[in-house]
């Protein structure tokens, strides 16, 4: 049984222009100790999916799913207070912007200790001791003196370490990192990523790594889910995906990696943008931007079909058996 099992999850927001499905019928399974990368451009529904798992979708949004269970517990039937006992304890999240994700009015020590206080009832000396321990684990030097620091006194990288300390405070079984390195300097990105992967390995927790950086996924993930316009475009193991991508969108993302564009003067790009609320095309959602689109793609919407090593939502996939033999 997977640790996190989501089937046919949709998140809809009602807007003036009508109902908009930010997430449109996705499946997502994460096993204990597994690292799953979710990739896709901005607006593909990656963050909304993770917020739905956390139970943090604002009241303007509706969450529907055929199945949404964590460690055997059906998340859909839980009351709010029961849900809160899981959120921040068994499932925790690290956000993109460390500088704005920490409360400017409270010390770092308070904000880390708060989870421990609320979920594990720690207080006094034990709380302080655990908090210092956590700061050590996320690689913050002189942790004791940082307890009383405010977020604005620390750098972005340090703040992201604090965010990670908050997230792992209660030993979560699943950690969701939503573009944890995007807002950071390139030199710091690597450190934070190494820290996350190290913690994942040491603690055996599952990790969902949301990013738009294929390179990051290649280094860390066991399995990859490629999202496009609120749907899963393709999913398979990381090695398979990088060796033989099936969906043209995945292919295009991989082609845009600088490492794969050796010898070319310009990095290939994907023309156009992810369709929004008003401009969803007929047929395959990717067809206006797809170099391989044919008439069928413009008329029918493809299903997420299983192939020999994963699943892809395409009528004319790349690297498929038929193509190889043909």
């Amino acid at each position, binding site marked *: 049984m997977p640790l996190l099992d989501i089937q046919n999850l949709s998140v809809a927001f009602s807007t003036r222009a009508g109902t908009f499905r930010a997430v449109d019928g996705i499946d997502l399974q994460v096993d204990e100790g597994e690292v799953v990368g979710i990739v896709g451009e901005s607006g593909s529904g990656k963050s909304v999916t993770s917020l739905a798992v956390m139970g943090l979708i604002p009241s303007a949004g509706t969450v529907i799913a055929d199945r949404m269970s964590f460690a055997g517990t059906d998340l859909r039937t839980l009351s709010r207070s029961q849900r*809160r006992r899981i*959120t921040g304890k068994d499932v925790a*999240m690290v956000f993109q912007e460390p500088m704005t994700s920490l*409360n400017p*009015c409270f010390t770092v020590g308070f904000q880390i200790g708060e989870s421990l206080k609320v979920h594990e009832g720690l207080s006094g000396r034990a709380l302080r001791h655990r908090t210092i321990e956590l700061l050590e684990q996320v690689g913050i030097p002189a942790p004791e003196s940082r307890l009383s620091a405010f977020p*604005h006194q620390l750098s972005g990288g340090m703040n992201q370490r604090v965010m990670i300390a908050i997230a792992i405070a209660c030993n979560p079984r699943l950690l969701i990192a939503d573009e944890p390195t995007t807002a950071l300097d390139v030199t710091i990105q690597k450190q934070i990523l190494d820290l996350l992967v190290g913690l994942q390995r040491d603690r055996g927790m599952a990790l969902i790594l949301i990013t738009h950086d294929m390179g990051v996924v290649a280094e860390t993930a066991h399995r990859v889910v490629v999202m496009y316009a609120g749907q899963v475009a393709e999913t398979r193991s990381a090695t398979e995906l990088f060796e033989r991508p099936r969906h043209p969108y995945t292919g295009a993302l991989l082609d845009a990696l600088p490492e794969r564009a050796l010898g070319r003067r310009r990095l290939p790009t994907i023309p156009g943008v992810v369709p929004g609320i008003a401009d969803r095309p007929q047929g395959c959602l990717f067809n206006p931007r797809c170099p391989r689109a044919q008439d069928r793609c413009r008329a029918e919407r493809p299903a997420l079909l299983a192939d020999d090593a994963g699943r892809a939502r395409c009528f004319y996939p790349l690297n498929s058996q038929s193509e190889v033999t043909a």
Partner: protein
Amino acid sequence: MLRFILTRASLLIPTFLGVTLLTFLLIRLVPGDPIEVRVGERGISPERLAQFRHELGLDQPLWKQFLDYIGGVLSGDLGTSLVTHNPVLQEFLTLFPATIELAFMAMLFASVVGLPAGIVAAVKRGSWFDHGVMGLSLTGYSMPIFWWGLLLILLFSVNLGWTPVSGRLDLLYYVEPVTGFMLIDTLLVGEYGAFWSALEHLILPTVVLGTIPLAVVARMTRSAMLEVLGEDYIRTARAKGLNSRRVVGLHALRNALIPVVTVIGLQVGTLLGGAILTETIFSWPGVGKWLIESINRRDYPALQGGVLLIASTVMAVNLLVDLLYGVLNPRIRHAR
């Protein structure tokens, strides 16, 4: 810290001079000087008028009068009232506690009602409660104090007879002033009947004076909360699995309070201005009523001294708010 206070205090000097000069000139623009007003329609011979004016120094050129006055103020002498012949400072200090008591209660009323109303309105944005609070606060903000006070007196005091019409204490009681605050003095002598009477007398003036600050505090709290509730760190707080009470009441409110406290501090000026009207309506024996009377009697030293002292109070409170701001906002505290 000390340097900050000294810098701020040095800025007060031009403000003091400006306030004094303005009051000094404006009251002299009003037709009729203290002697004419006192003599009234009886008339007086021009010689006697000139003699009285000479005695009060009113025949001197304006700049000379002003310099004399400033000189007095700098040596700590605010002059004596032309009517009662008591030192202005002494009269002010006798009456000021009544005004402070009223203003304090009004601010308390505004905060105790306005903060929760603004918080709930922000959390339940777009609900009937939100619309109700915002509509009422707009009405409250636009309510002329004079008219509002008369309406409340008519309804609650005259028609329903629930509250006294005016004054600070029922005639049945006499309480020797110790602190000047009626609520405290009555308790000090253990007169509980008098305490209730004082409280009853405070209700309507408090509501009337507190209405505008209440409207401002509620609106400000709502907008500050709305802004803060959209911040990333609120999402972080929710992601920790904290309950709404803690997310809103601790994480959001702590940040939203920063602008709200500033606004409350700035309201003190409005409050003391409003106190003048409120005290007049309710015959409240405070400095507001005294100032109005001083204008009517052209009691130049009393008016000038009173305005100067009230201005000092407002500036002192604003300074205090600035210091408090640093306590509330760690980003400012550490910037120094």
